């Protein structure tokens, strides 16, 4: 049994409510920070797409293969996000 059925007290409910509220604020802050990281991330992605054509992409453990130029994905027009 992973959870033994029990009744939550008012104090517990209030504590959960407070923590969930704080978590919402924390999540919003993370989204803000990650949006601000976009220019750096774009650079990292460009470098990654270059490396996988020259050094290769990891397939399994130490096995790598070089990606052909025509396989390189194109950035879609939709908004790009990393936090979901």
């Amino acid at each position: 049994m992973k959870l033994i059925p029990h009744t939550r007290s008012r104090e517990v409910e209030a504590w959960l409510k407070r923590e969930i509220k704080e978590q919402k604020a924390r999540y919003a802050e993370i989204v803000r920070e990650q949006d601000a990281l976009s220019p750096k991330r774009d650079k990292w992605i460009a470098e990654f797409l270059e490396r996988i054509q020259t050094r290769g992409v990891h397939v399994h453990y130490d096995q790598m293969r070089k990606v052909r130029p025509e396989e390189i994905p194109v950035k879609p027009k939709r908004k790009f996000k990393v936090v979901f």
Partner: protein
Amino acid sequence: MARPHIEPFVDRDVSFKKMTLPGFPKGMQYKMLSMDTDDGSCSMTVAFMPGYKQPPGMSYSEYELFIQSGSIKVGDKVWGPGSYFYVPAGVSLEEMSSPRGATGLLFYNYGEPSFVESDADHSKAERHRFAAVDSYENMQWTSTNFFPATAPGCLVKILRFDPRTQGFTFLYCMTPNFWQDNISYHDCSEEAYHIWGTSWMMQFGDLPTGGYFYRPPYINHGAFASKLGILAIGRTDTQLYNHFHFNPWTNVEENRERAANRILQWKPELYQWINMHGHNHPVDFEYDHGHAHGDAAHHHGDGQVEHKHKKKTRRKK
């Protein structure tokens, strides 16, 4: 919505709070890392103040405790850094104390934190599942044994494995100058906390000591690198499979659909047996779409994947 995607979060940036939930003794502090908004299960960094004492007691939900620094005493035995406990719901833990204080990580699964003083197990407790191990002294690093595997230099110690869900809790390390050039996602939720060291991921940047993430399924992460190496603790809720690829811009829906398509390729019998409704010919974004009717295995709401279509004859106008 269960737990949101918390990544990255560094607990060094926030202060400890006093644990005020009913039942918990004074002298315990915490930093909330993530919480399930439905059932209250959560992951926390905790500090037991010097002189902390906790009578024998149980929790309504199962929990895991990992000691990072200092030591605790459980019964007559002293447990230092690297000690790991898995305590099933309702199992009474002996008196616990920390004469000089300790810090650790506390994970409550399936329900909110609770403590009920009791020197006996609850009638529904599964005592045989209790586990305690000194992971630093009594376990050795192994390679990951996944296929496909992470790059050389990522090693693990499996602390707990759930045979039913295949979810597991593990220590992992990256050796200095570790790098892995691909993008990964999993069918499981994954969370991790950096006990020591900094690693880098192409999406999120640096994750330093005290860094944490809770990542729901199908979210891209990687490439990966670590200059000086790291030591971390991680957990999954179900089987961890590395869906590797190299498209930085795919989203959760595309990744999930690709994973479903892969199940179709790997386990066609199972896939056909499972009765799915709605959109039942998932697409792998690395391959042709296959949306033309009849190109991909599908059914019409009746679970009959193997069927034939009559060719429609077009009438000439």
